[in-house]
């Protein structure tokens, strides 16, 4: 075996290909990659390593730094990753998503060397060990219990991303390049916190909130689920239904939602959508499953919703705020701003391209590569001789008092 790049890790080449969605043949067709698909296969299986020139060409083709291919593999501490829509998602889409998920974990672990993330506060509920035995009532109660655990009351949730980040979750919004994949999550035992990626290939702000609540459902309900369980289609389907049910109960607590949903017509749902920040489709589903409306009413609402074109786009979808993750973004801002790390350090440590890091961390494109620290100017001190006992002018602001 000729060894032309000492330390080359073949599995990293496979990882790079999977993330970029390249087959071995496609990679060989990229500029400068002057080797055959068989050679790529040999690199990946460790039977050969590329020359420095070929390694450089491959790194350019997949837009990753060369030392990415020299990085040791991560410890195999994989728990259970829950993929939403796994049944219809292609294997390559799942592989790509899983790789991006690993990168997200790498980024979070790197940042946690410099920044204290919020303490992880996810309740451990007393639920049946076998999730298939979970009843709908138990799921509804679990959603209520999580709200109680976090002292949330039963009102609308202003910002799902912020809520989960404050409880210690690491969240990314990422293009998963697969419309069949809405998101994925894993509770990483080693870090004692969940990681969640919400796919942004399709959807709306309300839908993405639901995706997060769905993943929270997995974290809370399915801590004991082993990957083998998800292989069987009926088990997978049931697990997904449970997470859906949890999401509905968590986002729309029954009593206040029932009070707002006073009339089973679409205009009522449109009116309350900005308050609950939940899609109309989701509200119909919740109302139907909770028994607030019967099947014929639900059917009528679905038909009328479809007639209004709301299967494609609902009212307020274009004006609702997209909830962006802040934890990783602010962590980067902090460590770069105070000089703890530089963009070069980030590349050296993570062995990822800056656009990949920016994307997963919710940073604007170019934030890392163009970063220039801002420093405080040496301003003259404030005049401390002024007598502060002299009252200033009081400016009265209109107060909004909504009580009688």
């Amino acid at each position, binding site marked *: 075996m000729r060894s032309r790049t000492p330390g080359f890790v073949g599995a990293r080449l496979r990882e790079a290909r999977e993330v970029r969605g390249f087959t071995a043949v496609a990679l060989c067709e990229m500029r400068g990659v002057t080797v055959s698909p068989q050679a790529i296969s040999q690199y990946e299986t460790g039977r050969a390593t590329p020359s420095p020139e070929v390694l450089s060409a491959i790194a350019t083709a997949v837009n990753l730094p060369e030392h990415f291919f020299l990085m040791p593999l991560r410890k195999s501490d994989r728990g259970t990753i829950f993929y939403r829509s796994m049944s219809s998602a292609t294997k390559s889409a799942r592989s790509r998503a899983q790789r991006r998920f690993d990168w997200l974990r790498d980024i979070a672990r790197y940042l946690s060397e410099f920044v204290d993330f919020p303490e992880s506060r996810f309740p451990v509920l007393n639920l049946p060990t076998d999730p298939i035995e979970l009843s709908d009532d138990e799921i509804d109660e679990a959603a209520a219990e999580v709200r109680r655990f976090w002292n949330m009351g039963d009102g609308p949730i202003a910002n799902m991303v912020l809520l989960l980040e404050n409880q210690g979750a690491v969240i990314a919004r990422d293009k998963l390049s697969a419309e069949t994949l809405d998101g994925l999550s894993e509770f990483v035992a080693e870090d004692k916190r969940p990681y969640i990626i919400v796919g942004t290939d399709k959807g709306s702000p309300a839908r993405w909130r639901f995706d997060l609540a769905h993943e929270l459902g997995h974290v809370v309900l399915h801590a004991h689920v082993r990957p083998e369980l998800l292989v069987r289609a009926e088990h997978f389907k049931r697990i997904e239904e449970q997470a859906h049910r949890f999401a509905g109960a968590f986002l729309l607590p029954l009593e206040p939602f*029932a*009070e707002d*949903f*006073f*009339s*089973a*017509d679409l*205009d*009522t749902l449109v*009116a309350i959508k900005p308050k609950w920040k939940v899609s109309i489709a989701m509200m119909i589903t919740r109302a139907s499953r909770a028994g*607030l*409306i*019967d099947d014929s*009413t639900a059917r009528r609402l679905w038909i009328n919703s479809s007639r209004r074109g709301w299967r494609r786009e609902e009212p307020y979808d274009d004006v609702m705020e997209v909830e962006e993750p802040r934890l990783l973004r602010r962590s980067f801002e902090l460590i770069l701003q105070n000089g703890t790390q530089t963009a070069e350090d980030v590349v050296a440590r993570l062995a990822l391209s800056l656009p990949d890091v920016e994307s997963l961390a919710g940073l604007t494109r170019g934030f890392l590569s163009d970063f220039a620290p801002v420093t405080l100017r040496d301003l003259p001190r404030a005049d401390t001789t002024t007598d502060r006992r002299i009252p200033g002018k009081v400016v009265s602001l*209109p*107060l*909004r*008092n*909504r*009580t*009688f």
Partner: protein
Amino acid sequence: MTPEDIGVALDRYLGDRTMRALLQAVFQSYAVAHADSRARFTPRQYENIVGYEVRCQLEDALGGIAERATGVSASEERAPGAKWNRTQLRVGPLLLVENAVETPCALVKSAAFRQTLARTNELSLFDNSDEHAGGLLYVALLHSRSDWRDPAERQKWRHLPGSAYLAVPDPDVRVYLHEINLFDRFPDVVVASTPQEWNVEAHIQYLDRARKNWAV
């Protein structure tokens, strides 16, 4: 049957939940109708159509309330010779329809169907028994446009109803035997349905204007 008895009957059969839903429906119907009519028509046609659309929206919402509430049923009725399909809600012995009126709690205009309905108001209905022996008590959900002195305010807040009442007329529709001001009964719904920029004073004025003896 005394007015107090009628009040007891309304509380018993409608209850706070349905009454609250009726008020929510009034607010929603005005808001949707105005937004929809304004978006579709010229200002002149908007003036022409919006009153009808408010009623259509409200009739529709009444049907939705029946689908949501236990013990409430809705039916579409058309009186002989009438051109309007009315949604009637039935809750126990109560028969409820909506009526647009000019001022808060004004008497509904005399119409054959109303008098027919009102004549069902057998005042001895509840005298001796809690059970209703097949008789009906006609209840009108009255709603009116909001009334503002300032033309700018009138233009700005016209999507808000001026009042909402439940009223039970005598058999000849000459007087209401009992009435409930839904704005006063559920001020929290009023607050939740009115502009956030309003302060307490604005709300007090709005509630005042919704009272039937309010003088312009």
